[in-house]
């Protein structure tokens, strides 16, 4: 039994080292994800079922009300998107004049978050789309309000996303107002991001919108990441302390969008190590 324990411990240590130092175990993880997917599905089922029951027990009046509200919203959004179309045409024309590259449209796919708890200290979510739907490692995940995170493990039917608030996540961002660049590191707290290495005299104010800069090649440029909530400058230190809240509803999102940025084929984007220049 002692020998068995020794083998188990050594094997576990070897696995951990391999998993931590290099990404060679992704295929093993993908295979294991198939085994645990039924459990995750089972856990998610009551949540889904209760939502379904709630939906089917709605009264006619409530549905009519909601329908009217959605119509109104739809009208509003369509008006806005008309303006957007005109602006896009103008933008394309100007870009042609400048002979700069055209930005292609982005493909998106809606994924449901499974209501599954993972490690409390790590901010990760399980999505119900996997490599069968073309999901790839490092793929950006956004919700209706901004960037939520990126895909870190892909299984055939499900994938794991790392949220922007996780301590090991730090996308490059820039201030929408003036283009000041920074890195928005996660803090492990669900409503807080920390901008690292912002110099004391950088022009960042409370209320500034941070958008993804597109540097690093992972996230497409221009998606909202967060809003600056607090800037503390201490003249004695070389960097300012800048806090932000994520734009995405990280804690309460039920559905997210998987984005294939800028028409890059997924296998190409997977190996994209170069910074994307399209987003300036």
């Amino acid at each position, binding site marked *: 039994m002692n020998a068995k324990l020794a083998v188990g411990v050594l094997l*576990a240590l070897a696995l951990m080292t391999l998993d931590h130092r290099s990404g060679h175990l992704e295929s093993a*993880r993908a295979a*294991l994800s198939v085994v645990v997917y039924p459990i995750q599905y089972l856990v998610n089922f009551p949540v889904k079922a209760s939502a379904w029951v709630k939906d089917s027990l709605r009264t006619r009046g409530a549905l009519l009300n909601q329908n009217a509200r959605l119509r109104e919203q739809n009208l509003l959004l369509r008006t806005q998107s008309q303006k957007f179309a005109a602006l896009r045409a103008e933008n394309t024309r100007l870009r042609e004049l400048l002979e700069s590259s055209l930005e292609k449209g982005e493909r998106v796919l809606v994924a449901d978050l499974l209501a599954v708890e993972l*490690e409390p200290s790590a901010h990760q979510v399980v999505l119900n789309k996997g490599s069968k739907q073309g999901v790839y490692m490092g793929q950006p995940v956004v919700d209706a309000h901004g960037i939520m995170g990126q895909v870190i493990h892909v299984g055939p039917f499900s994938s794991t996303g790392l949220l922007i608030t996780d301590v090991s996540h730090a996308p490059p961002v820039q201030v929408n107002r003036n283009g000041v660049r920074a890195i928005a590191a996660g803090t492990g707290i669900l409503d807080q991001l920390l901008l690292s290495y912002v110099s004391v005299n950088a022009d960042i104010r409370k209320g500034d919108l941070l958008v993804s800069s597109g540097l690093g090649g992972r996230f497409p440029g221009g998606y909202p990441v967060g809003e600056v909530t607090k800037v503390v400058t201490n003249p004695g230190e070389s960097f300012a302390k800048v806090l932000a809240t994520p734009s995405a509803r990280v804690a309460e999102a039920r559905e997210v969008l998987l984005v294939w940025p800028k028409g890059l084929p997924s296998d190409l984007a997977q190996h994209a190590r170069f910074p994307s220049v399209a987003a300036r």
Partner: protein
Amino acid sequence: MRVYQQRGGWIIIATFLAAFVLTAMPVPEWAASWRPTWVALVLVYWCMELPERVGIGVGWTLGLLLDALTGALLGQHALAMSVTAYLAVKTRCQIRVFATVQQVLVISLLLASYLLMMLFVKAMSGIPPQDWVYAAPVLSGALVWPWLFALLKKVRRRAHVS
């Protein structure tokens, strides 16, 4: 050749499945860090009762599945679970005859070692937990143990798992 016929394997599987479901079940945020380490508790029970069927190997495999389920480093739970299984099998003769209070003490020691091993791995991989609430599962696990023990015992007797 087996002399004893092994019975009720599906009961063991079902209890572990339930433990996995409890591990993955969404709970309010304040309760998340107080969630007992269900799979480890059930493992300790079966290691005590049927050490020839549930031991280090089973613990290791379940640990690997836990790693995949919780998105942890592969091998993290496998390490902690196999050591916990070892300790449980080693101390099973004492634990089984202990009074409830003594049992709870030993179980909390087991859980503490389980969490300590995970803490080592987390600290090594660069994401150490920030506060003392990390140790909360020891307390909650010790609290649920007497009930879990009684329940599993009843299930085992009813289904004649041997």
